[in-house]
Structure formats: C-alpha cells, structure tokens
C-alpha cells in the first residue's frame, strides 16, 4: 500500500537514503541543506546507523571516502561553497572508483554568495567536480517526490558503476514541502563489493584503494577504463522528460525547479496557441543529447532557462549541433523568474520566427 507523507525536499532525500540502505552520513552544516543532516541525526541511531558531524567539508568527504572504501553505502550533503571544499576528496574518490552519493542543495554564488536557490553550480557539477580527467553522474530532481526517487537511484547507479553520484538540487526544492511516496523505488541487483578494503581475513590477497599511478601508461589506461564506463552510463542511465515536443516550434530546455516554472509558462503559451514544448534533463551528466537532437528535426528555436548565467547553453548547442538558434533566459544570485517572465521570452521568440 502506498502512503504519501508531506515532507521537505531535504528530508525526503535523507529518508530515501535510509530506505535505500544507507547507514552512514558524514556532513557539515550549511544553509539551505542542513535539514538533511538534522533528519539523519534523528533517524540514523534508530536504524543502527551513524550521522557524524565532521570538522569540515574537507573531512566529511574524506570520511565518505573511508566508508566507501570499506564497502559501505554512504552519503554526504552540502550546499555550493561546501561542495567546493569537497572537490579535492571527490577527485580522489573518482580516482579510486568508489561509489557514494553527494547532495548539493545549491545556493547563489560565487563566494559566500547567498542562501537563496540557484543553479549556478552546473558547470562545477557536470564539468569540473575536481581536478583531473573525471566525470560524475549528476541527477537533477524537480520535485520532492523525485528528490526521494533519484536518491534511491543514485545509490544503485553509484554501486553498479563504482562512481560518485551527485544529486544536484537547489534551495527551493530543498525547502519546499510536497507529498512523497517512498514505496515506488525498485532496487536493482548489484555486484558484490569484492574490491573493498575491509580486511582480507586471510582469505584473499590484499585490496588496495588507490588513485596514484607512477607509470603514465598505467594512469592513462585507468582513465580510459573509467571513460568506457562513462559511455556505458550514458547508454543505460540517461534520463529526461519530454512535454509536448512532438509538434513544438519552440523547445524549452530546463531542469530542476526551473523546469516547473517553465511548465507553467508552457501551458500558458499553449493556451495562446503557441506550439511550445519542453525537454527536461533529469541526468545533467550524462547529458540527454538524443531527445534534443530529435526535437531539433522539427523545432525552430530552443530556449534554455536556468537559475544562472547560461551554464547549460553550450550542452544544448552541442546536442543539436548548433542546427537551431538557442536563446538563453536566466536569473541568478537567488532570484527566481516567474512563468510570465518565461512566457514573455517565448512570445519574443515567436515574433522572430
């Protein structure tokens, strides 16, 4: 029987982690994601788990590394400035092929920025999570329900491909309350973690968790192996939502909280007889090129809407091989566009068609 609970997005992530078998959380307080660690501080002891407040984000991500190296499901969460601090550890975790889940409930930046919702860590999450040739999987929920569902998915993807997975949310999703149903997740069958450093018990050769290669040929091979895995992830795990794209002249591309504002604008446009559609990337990395490429066959114009200065625009242009004009509309610093703002942009584009 499914039962819906009214929860904040942050709490939904925390509860979904527990329901996914995560028993270890290491974090550091920062607005607007603190409810995740507060919820887990209450819940973890009741399920035999641990929620430990680290001395810094740097320490927290390295505690995650230690727990992941030992083969445990583990999560950390933060918001933009804290994610910057985690990027060193994230690079090592990638280099060691360790699975874990990292949540970024984004706020405005750069610097201390603000505490209001933003999507200005798109580049950091999808292109430059840390130093070195690396990628991580980035999932962008657009509702409290999806915060829960994608958290469950994140743990499975992490374990299946031995990669960190980031939930890239924002302050609005983290703070808003919506009904959430936890019974919908369907766990996958996952491989044994026979690579973990948990003590060999005299039963096998030692395991080494390591990202250092003194021979450049070895390092190149390890990077190539990892990128082959990224290609596999792109094949099998790319997710997106399409709304009324079949006959659309104008295709909006938006993710997370912005996609919801765009959906309202889309409905307003349709009621005015404008053929608008929406592609919502759910995985920002890997990026869903295919639906955009397909849409570009019939659509005349693309509109990218984000809470930043246009960080996804290049990915959209690449996906459609620059075959159609791409317009950007965004607010930043914690400012939110209204559906009317988006509609106005759509109507401007209509005039230019």
């Amino acid at each position, binding site marked *: 029987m499914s039962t819906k609970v009214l929860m904040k997005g942050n709490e939904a992530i925390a509860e979904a982690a527990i329901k996914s078998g995560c028993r270890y959380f290491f974090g550091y307080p920062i607005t607007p994601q603190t409810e995740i660690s507060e919820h887990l501080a209450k819940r973890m002891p009741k399920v035999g788990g641990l929620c430990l407040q680290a001395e810094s984000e740097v320490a927290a991500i390295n505690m995650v590394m230690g727990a992941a190296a030992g083969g445990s499901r583990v999560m950390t969460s933060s918001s933009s400035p804290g994610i910057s601090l985690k990027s060193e550890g994230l690079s090592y975790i990638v280099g060691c092929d360790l699975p874990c889940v990292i949540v970024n409930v984004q706020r405005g930046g750069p610097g201390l920025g603000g505490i209001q919702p933003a999507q200005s860590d798109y580049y950091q999450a999808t292109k430059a999570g840390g130093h070195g040739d690396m990628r991580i999987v980035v999932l962008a929920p657009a509702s409290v329900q999806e915060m829960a569902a994608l958290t469950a998915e994140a743990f499975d993807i992490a374990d299946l491909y031995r990669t960190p997975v980031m939930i890239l949310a924002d302050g609005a999703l983290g703070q808003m309350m919506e009904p959430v149903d936890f019974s919908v997740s369907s766990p996958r069958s996952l491989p044994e973690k026979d690579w973990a*450093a948990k003590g*060999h018990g005299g039963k096998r050769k030692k*395991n080494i968790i390591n990202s250092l290669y003194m021979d450049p040929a070895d390092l190149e091979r390890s990077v190539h192996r990892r990128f082959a895995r990224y290609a596999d992830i792109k094949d099998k795990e790319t997710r997106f939502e399409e709304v009324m794209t079949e006959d659309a002249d104008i295709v909006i591309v938006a993710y997370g909280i912005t996609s919801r504002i765009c959906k309202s604008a889309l409905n307003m446009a349709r009621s005015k007889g404008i053929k608008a559609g929406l592609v919502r990337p759910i995985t920002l990395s890997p990026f869903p090129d295919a639906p955009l490429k397909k849409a570009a066959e019939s659509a005349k114009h693309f509109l990218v809407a984000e809470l930043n200065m246009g960080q996804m625009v290049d990915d959209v242009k690449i996906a459609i091989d620059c075959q159609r004009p791409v317009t950007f509309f965004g607010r930043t610093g914690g400012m939110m566009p209204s559906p009317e703002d988006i509609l106005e942009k759509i109507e401007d584009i209509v005039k230019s068609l």
Partner: protein
Amino acid sequence: MVVFEKPKSLSPVPFHYCPGCTHGIVHRLVAEAIDKLEIEGSTIGIAPVGCSVFAYNYFECDMIQAAHGRAPAVATGLKRTRPDSVVFTYQGDGDLAAIGTAETVHAATRGENITIIFINNAIYGMTGGQMAPTTLPGQITTTSPYGRDRKIQGNPIRICEMLSTLDGAAYVERVSVDSPKNIMRAKRSIEKAFRTQLDKKGFSLVEVLSTCPTNWGMSPVESLEWLRTNMIPYYPLGVFKDTTEE
C-alpha cells in the same frame, strides 16, 4: 636455524626509500606489531602523501591511499563503518602537522579508535627538502635557506604535547629510532598503540623521530647523531598521555 625473519605482514618487495632512511625501520616495527597481535586479516592501513605514499605496497593488509593530510578523516569513515577492523594511518610531518592538522586534532578529540604512526623528520622529503611544520629553529631547508627564523617562518609545532591536552586521546607517545635501545622502545610503543585500539580505548598516536639523510645532507650515521643532539632536546621522548589503565 632461522634467527631473523621478515615480518609476515611486510610485503616481500624492495623499499623505494633512500639509503639510511628510517622509514624502513618503522615499517618493520608496524609489521611486527601486526604479526604479534595476529591482526593482519582485520587491519586496513592508510597511506599518506609524502615519502611514505607507497606504504600501500609495503604492508600485506588491505590498504588505502589518502589525499594529503586527510588520512585521519578517511580512517574515521572506515573505522566508524567497520568498527571490528583495525585501522591505522602512517603519516609524515607535512601530512599530519601542516595540511592535515585539523583532521588530526579532530580525530583525536573525538576519540576515534584508530592508531596513527607519525613520522617526524623535520623536513619534506618527497618534494626535496622543504621546510616542515616541525623543522627546528635555525634548521636549513630549501625554503628556509638561511635557517628557520622564528620571526619569519614561525615556530615548530609539538604534536604530542598538543594532542595530550585532548580528552579523546588515549595514548600518545614520542619515540625515536636513532639507536637500538630507542628502536626497542619504539617497537613496544607501536604495539601498545595497536593494543589500545584493540581494547577500544580510543585514539592512539606514536610520534617517531626519524632521519632524512638525503635532504639533511648528511650521512646516515651523522643523521642519527643530528637527531640525538638537535631533535630530541626540542621534541622530548616519552609518554604524553596514557589513559589505557584507567
């Protein structure tokens, strides 16, 4: 008749360390403790960044290589999720007492039930002889070429003294490997540190005063003498904290 053997938990591979470097001695002492306590199968070692970065190649237990200074945080995450395992870090002075000071202090004050082997040779070895947080006043390094001037480069840090003020620290001792007598004492100390962890008494750290003949620009024998006459007076040997009998 065999009178001297390589410890079982020390890997049968050549060390990369410079001639006369004392890392080899300390690696052996750690392996001897692991063998004596029969814990190789449940032990996970954490290698630092620095000369001992390749420690993961030298011990037969499971090993993790951590980012510079972060070994105590990695150890915390591992030990908290695998409380029945034995977790030790092996760190140099730059790793533990400069870039990783916060991780060290907080692992100690939380009372993490881990063991840290801290090699203090008063210099950065791997990068070629730069000033360390433990470089002595007046000591010449490539980044204190006129000798460490307290007014410019500041003062060295005494880790054992500092950590002994923390409630979470159970066993903190400074030893040296400059003489057979001190090596035997270091051996007992390292074994006790592991035993502290096995008895779930809390955080244990053994600081081992060590040499770096290559970057000190001395022969191995001169280095041991320099350690005795310069380091031990500044970093006195002894037990700074021991709550294991309480």
